[in-house]
């Protein structure tokens, strides 16, 4: 009898749980007088800096648009869900946002979770614009758009830049083989380098589990006689590499990609070590551009940090939505699928200035890939200076 009772109680509990979260589900949730924009990314865990940057960057853009009268006259609501950089959790976050009544998605921040979520958004036909998931594989449907460069694009552009400007003849690479982003750039870099007669003398990998000591990798590059070390990695690891190279007395040129942006803000990092480091980035926080200045000031006031390119890409993503929404004349009464159909037609026609677009601005292909010019900057006197 007791057993039966406990079983019945357990059942009631389980059902209670299900219905509790079942409340509020509808075919098209959401109110009809606001647009609901969702965001997904890691707000906790090791990749949290990227997720938070996107969250804050989006928030600033949303606030600005709301202040200026909203999107097509409607206010925007914004909700950001944590996915801890895990594909399964990311899909959960996406479903949560759908329950909330999301109209459009700005996400997912990191690549691997984005692949899983993009697969769902393609099925649902939910308009998706990812600020920073840079693998070309995420563009699996015509409703998915990217604000950042794709990884292969960064790899080939870096190789071309190094070769054109004759920065080096022998290149060493240190990369994270367990990271899709890093490995993607490296693969394309090597391929392009081969066709440009740029000699890649060493390729040394590390993984997410062993990213605190890089002396072996540096030694390998040094022994191979590399006069330039290409670092397609994020800035936290790059800062350690710069420090250890200095300790070893090895002073090649260092060349990074957009993940290197932010290296000057690493805590307890002697920024003089980063002198002369070159990187290819669409965004420099100390640019003289009016829009960038205003964004950086607002960001610093609100979050006490200097924004990196993730935040800038997120900001541009929201403005791309704004431009396309105005062109497509969407209203919140439409279902997300109708919005998506209207938006994907409008996306290829817009051209926004943006923070990361440089002089030519941002334009999109029908595939979802962005068209923008990378800028090469060099760190001089603790600042990013454009290289010409």
């Amino acid at each position, binding site marked *: *009898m*007791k*057993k039966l*009772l406990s*079983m019945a109680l*357990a*059942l009631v509990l*389980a*059902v209670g*749980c*299900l*219905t*509790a*979260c*079942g*409340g*509020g*589900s509808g075919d098209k949730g959401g109110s009809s007088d606001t647009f609901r924009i969702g965001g997904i990314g890691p*707000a*906790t*865990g090791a990749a949290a800096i990227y997720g938070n940057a996107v969250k804050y960057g989006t928030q600033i853009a949303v606030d600005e648009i709301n202040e200026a009268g909203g999107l097509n006259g409607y206010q925007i609501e914004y909700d950001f*869900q*944590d996915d*801890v*950089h*895990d*594909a*399964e*959790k990311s*899909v*959960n*976050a*996406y*479903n*949560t946002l*759908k*329950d909330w009544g999301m109209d459009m998605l700005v996400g997912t921040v990191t690549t*691997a979770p984005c*692949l*899983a979520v993009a*697969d769902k958004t393609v099925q649902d036909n939910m308009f998706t614009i990812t600020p920073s998931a840079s*693998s070309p*594989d995420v563009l*699996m449907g015509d409703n998915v758009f990217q604000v950042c460069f794709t990884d292969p694009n960064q790899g080939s552009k870096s190789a071309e830049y190094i070769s054109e400007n004759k920065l080096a003849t022998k290149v060493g690479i240190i990369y994270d*083989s*367990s*990271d*899709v982003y890093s*490995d*993607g750039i*490296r*693969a394309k870099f*090597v*391929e392009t380098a081969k066709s440009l007669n740029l000699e890649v003398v060493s390729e040394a*990998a590390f*993984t*997410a*589990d062993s990213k605190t000591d890089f002396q072996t990798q540096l030694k390998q590059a040094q022994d191979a006689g590399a006069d330039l070390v290409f670092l397609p990695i994020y800035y936290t690891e790059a800062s350690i590499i710069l420090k250890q190279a200095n300790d070893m007395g090895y002073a090649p040129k260092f060349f990074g990609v957009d993940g290197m942006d932010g290296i000057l803000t690493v805590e307890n990092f002697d920024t003089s070590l980063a002198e002369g480091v070159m990187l290819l980035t669409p965004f420099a926080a100390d640019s003289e551009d009016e829009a960038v200045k205003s964004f950086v000031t607002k960001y610093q006031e609100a979050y006490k940090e200097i924004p990196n390119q993730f935040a800038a890409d997120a900001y541009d993503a929201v403005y791309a939505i704004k431009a396309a929404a105005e062109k497509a004349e969407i209203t919140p009464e439409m279902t997300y699928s109708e919005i998506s159909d209207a938006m994907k037609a409008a996306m290829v026609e817009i051209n926004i200035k943006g923070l990361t677009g440089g002089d030519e601005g941002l334009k999109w292909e029908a595939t979802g890939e962005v068209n923008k010019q990378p800028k090469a900057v060099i760190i001089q006197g603790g600042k990013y200076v454009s290289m010409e």
Partner: protein
Amino acid sequence: MKTGIKNMKKEVRGQLITYGLVIGVFIIVQVMLSLGMISNLMQGLLVPLCTYSIVAVALNLCVGYLGELSLGHAGFMCVGAFSSAFFTKCTMTTGLNENVRFFLALLVGTLTAALFGYLIGIPVLRLRGDYLAIVTLAFGEIIKNVINVLYIGRDSAGFHFGMKDETSLGLGEDGEVLVNGAKGIMRTPHQSTFTIGVILLLISLFVCFQLVNSRSGRAIMAIRDNRIAAESVGIPITKYKLLAFTISAAIAGIGGVLYAHNLSTLTAQPANFGYNMSIMILVFVVLGGMGSFRGSVIAAVLLTMLPEILRGLADYRMLIYAIVLIAMMLFNWSPKLIEFRKKFIADVFKKKEKEAA
């Protein structure tokens, strides 16, 4: 009926209650699904809930009945997931019936996981002490890192393997990369459904119950309780240990297959197949009670759902999650609280009986 249940052997009754619980929840969920009462979040969670329940059952067999600590069940899940997804990718173009293909993928995943479990067990289960925990811990990490540098492609000439990068595979024009290092396996079809998940969970439970209530199961428990005594009555220790551990690994492989066919992308990250996941599964087992398969299932369901339900608390959710976890552990296992609970239930029953009288 009631007397029928009472007269049954205790183990049989326990088994029936567990099956009934799973089937009951399944029916309720199906009804609610057809009425559209379940949120998107819960719909998305149904398959992961089955996955983690299955793996928790698998680990419980190893920890609760065999008495050996395994810290690498996420590794067996990983092996099952990748081998089955690889099989599915290879046979996707052959025009094989989808359901047959999934069934074969399930076999491949399960057998591969079992094979790895067996190979690890051969040397390690001969030893006494905590060696299994150490070796499985290492296995989980090794398998994750190996998969991250593994490249497999296929073209008209056959399969190409590599440990460096995609270009070094030297694929022909018609080649496609099947396993792409850190990117893992992409675009696997979604074939895991809640129904399949529940069926697999029931099969796993059935296998485990049958095993522990059989002659072999009694031998396994005898080894757990007193190795020397078991040895002295002539039980071949290594054989039974290997048997239980291999089955445990195979069932974890089933969980992996379910996982791999639920998401369109399969990568071996620390978050999904790493050390933390192994510990998480161990937490399900400990919270649910070692040796109680039903407890493992309930704990796995509750603990997988909890962080998602707490999403409303935003940044504080992991903090609350930890507190709830501690509270649940105390509630379930603190002797004082168990006493209190028993008294409480007894009081409630007395009252009812009085009212009835």
